[in-house]
Each structure stands twice: as structure tokens, then as C-alpha cells.
């Protein structure tokens, strides 16, 4: 019995040893499904408790928006709100001899906020990624590089910075600073969106705080989202 099996095994192994590399031998086109697929009901009921608890949390109203908050280059109310909320939150108790500005990326604001209730879910949609807040110190000579970047990109969310007639300047600043601090995200500091000027940093302070949590905190404090500063 065992012997017979062993013979079969060897015969089998011999047969299979001669097969060659797989070749593409047929149609490789896209085949869209014509009809709508019906959701599997057991899966829907499995997900439901998670969805319900999530919805309940995400539907919490944090603040009111008196207008639609949108993203639009060169600058818009939502871009201003995000940058100013971060700037305000971070500079409340900080007094430095060097100027402090805030610079983020338009691409990082992932959704708009409609007029009316501003929910936790809205803020998650605006900022889904877990980027953290960092302070980056740059030599003042880097400012023209940021100006070039902004002129090329068409505009990014910023606070305490003004871009007028192609000229970038710091709004509130002590006289003749040698360096300035930029409050931004770890993503941008590490070369995200090709903001290569951050490689010229002279100092970094990582807060470890999520950018999204800062926005949630500020929305609660403001009650009505403030976009004009």
C-alpha cells in the first residue's frame, strides 16, 4: 500500500517537474461589472455597531459655520481658518524674540466645510491624516525661497505672512530678525509637497500634537469659525 503510494508520488513529481514558466496566454482587459452588486447582509450587520458608534461620535457638533468654508487658491476662508487656528493655538503662551509664522499646504486640506453645524466628522474630513505640529526655525534668507514656492504653487494656507504684489513679508515681526519660526506639519518639514526650503532648518521643536486635534480644540473654543483676521 505504502509502496504503491510512493511510486505514484515519484511518477507525479516527474510529471510536474517538466512544467515551464507561466506565460500570459489570454485576454487581460478590464471587465466592469454591469449590474449593481447587492451588499452582503451578514457583513452589513457586522459593521453596523461600529458604524453607529462612529456616526454618533462624528456627528458631535463642535461649532457653527456662518458661510461655506472652501479651499480655493490663492487664499480662501478655510485655508485662513486652518492656518490661523493653528497659529493662535500654538502662540497663545509663547513669546519669542524671533517672528513666528504658520505655513501649511493647500493639498493637505482634504475637504470643505458646509454652512451650518461643524461636526467632528467635518474636521476629520478636512484633516484625515495623523500629521503632527512642528516648529521649524529657518534663517531669514530662506524667505525669498518660500516666496518663489508660493508664487509657483499659487497659494498655501498661511498666518502672519502676507503675499502682496509678488512679495512675501512677515506681518508682525521684531526689527531685523536673523531667523524666524514656521509652525507647520511634520509631513511638510520632512519634504512633503516638495517644500525643500525646510531642509535649511536650524532648529526643530516637535510638539507631537496632531494637527487635527488642534483644529478640533480651536473649533470648540471659537464656537463660530473665525476666518477674518
Amino acid at each position: 500500500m505504502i509502496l504503491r503510494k510512493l511510486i505514484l508520488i515519484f511518477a507525479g513529481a516527474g510529471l510536474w517537474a517538466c512544467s515551464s514558466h507561466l506565460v500570459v496566454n489570454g485576454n487581460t482587459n478590464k471587465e466592469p461589472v454591469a449590474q449593481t452588486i447587492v451588499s452582503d447582509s451578514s457583513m452589513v450587520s457586522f459593521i453596523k455597531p461600529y458604524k453607529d458608534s462612529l456616526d454618533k461620535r462624528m456627528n458631535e457638533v463642535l461649532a457653527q459655520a456662518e458661510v461655506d468654508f472652501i479651499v480655493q487658491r490663492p487664499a480662501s476662508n478655510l485655508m485662513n481658518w486652518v492656518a490661523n487656528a493653528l497659529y493662535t493655538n500654538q502662540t497663545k503662551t509663547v513669546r519669542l524674540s524671533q517672528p513666528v509664522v504658520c505655513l501649511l499646504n493647500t493639498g493637505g486640506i482634504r475637504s470643505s466645510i458646509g454652512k451650518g453645524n461643524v461636526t467632528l466628522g467635518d474636521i476629520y474630513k478636512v484633516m484625515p491624516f495623523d500629521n503632527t505640529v512642528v516648529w521649524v526655525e529657518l534663517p531669514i534668507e530662506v524667505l525669498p525661497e518660500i516666496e518663489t514656492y508660493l508664487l509657483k504653487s499659487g497659494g498655501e494656507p498661511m498666518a502672519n505672512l502676507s503675499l502682496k504684489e509678488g512679495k512675501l513679508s512677515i506681518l508682525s515681526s521684531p526689527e531685523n530678525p536673523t531667523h524666524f519660526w514656521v509652525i507647520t506639519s511634520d509631513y511638510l518639514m520632512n519634504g512633503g509637497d516638495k517644500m525643500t526650503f525646510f531642509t535649511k532648518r536650524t532648529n526643530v521643536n516637535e510638539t507631537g500634537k496632531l494637527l487635527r486635534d488642534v483644529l478640533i480644540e480651536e473649533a470648540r473654543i471659537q464656537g463660530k469659525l473665525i476666518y477674518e483676521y
Partner: protein
Amino acid sequence: MKRRNFIKNLALSTGSLLIADNLLAETLLPPKSKKLVILHTNDTHSNIDSFPSNHPKFPGMGDVAKRFTLIQKIRSENEHVLLLDSGDIFQGTPYFNTFNGELEMKLMSKLGYDAATMGNHDFDIGLEGFMNAKKHANFPFVCSNYNFSKTVLANETKLYHIFKKGGIKIGVFGIGVELNGLVPKDKYGETLYKDPIETANSMAQLLTDLGCKVIICLSHLGYDYEDKARISDLVLAKETANIHLILGGHTHTFLDKPTVLNNANNQQVLINQVGWAGVNLGRIDIDIDKGILKSSTLEVK
């Protein structure tokens, strides 16, 4: 002597003899059906519900419960099916921020995933976070070029996994993207990165030597880059041997049809990627004698 012991051990009881016979028949005898269906996803990014019906790009697409219906149908029509994922399971919806990947792992287990590899976003809650979520997964993670031996993930992932379907051995391994510069250091800790091409070549050779007739690389390198010197699936395909399928991710690439390239030994390699967020399910039909019969991208909507 060794063989005599082997036979003796086999004969210890009728029960073990029966089991052994079945095992032999399963693994070594020519199969009845030589058809194998490979299903795959990539970059699902915690998308569990479908996109809203007014979504500009994917209205009503990408629902996990619909993916399940589709997979069940294909399983009912085919005896030998493998369901694989190429990483970035995490990050993208509040489900992830709220439940820390637990739900994604539970759902993939219910969907019947056979194996997955890790993408860069699967490090987003750190190695311990990933490990906690992975407790809810009933399928292996294959990670061949991340060396986790100095981390909490030591022995938690596999270098490769061999499936046996209808007597055919299918070898699956995973190639991840360089984490330095992409993932914060505190998230990946002491994970060591090994060269993707070298690793892929040694894995594919090993799996060939172990008798695998189909060798699949789950890759999170990305499909292609402007900088052609940068490692991508296209580069990987050309510079390796013995791999049949590269199922990719990372670049969220939608392909009209899979790319077929010649490898270092002038043999064909099929490279595929199916976008992201679970809006598509990739399907590749293989006949072990005739080759790759068909490849299709199935829309989940």
C-alpha cells in the same frame, strides 16, 4: 534507516495512515482542476462604507459588504481561489482613527483573505499598534524585506507562505517600500530594510526550489516613477527571475489592463494594481498548464 522510521511512524495507527494518505494525495498527485483564481486588492485605506453617491470619481463604489458578495460568488464558481492584499490597509477614514485597525483586520478575516503584505501606512500607529490590530487577523502577513527581529513584530510576520491548491504549490512573498523618509522613525523603530531586488530574487528562488509552480510577489513599492532609477514594480519585474505575478500597491494606480514585461531570464511577468479604497477587485485566472488565461478588474459598486 530514516525512511524505515518514517514508514514505521506512518503505520503507528490507522488514523495517522489515513491522514498521511490524504496529505500525500493532496500535495503530490496531479489535481483534478488545474485552474486557480487569484483575487487581489491594494491600498484599501480603511474604506469600509462606499463612497457617497455624489462622489465625483467613485460614486457608490468601494463597499466592503459588496466586495464580500462578489468574492463569495467567485468562490462558489471556482474551487481554487486565493484572496490577497498588497498593503496600506490602514488610514483614510475615521474607522481607523477610532478603532485603530481592529475593524479592518476583522473584516479582512471575514472576507477570507489568505495573505497580505504591509504598506507604509500600516506603520501609522507604530509596530505595537499594528500588532494589536493584527490579533484580529486570521491570515498571515508576508513581509520579506522588513527585518523585524529587533522589534515587537519579531516572529509576527512571515518571509513567505506556501498555499496548496488542488495539488499545486503557490508561493507568496511580500516586498515593502523603504520607510526612511516616508514613515516617522518612532513608528517603525528598529525595523531594518533589506534590498527589494535581492530579497525578491532569493525568495523566488527559494520558492521555486520548494516546488512552487506559481510565485506571487505582493509589492508595496509602487507601480512606476518619473525617476526611472527609483525601485518600482516595473523595475522589480525586469531585474528579477522566477516571479510570475507582481500584485502592487502604494501609487494607487488604475491600469486599463495589467502590464506584461520580460524578466531577467526573458520570461513573462504580469504586474497589476487596482487603484485604491476597494473600488476594484483584481482577478487573475491561471491554468497551471496553459498559463495566465485572463485578467480582469472588477468594479465594486
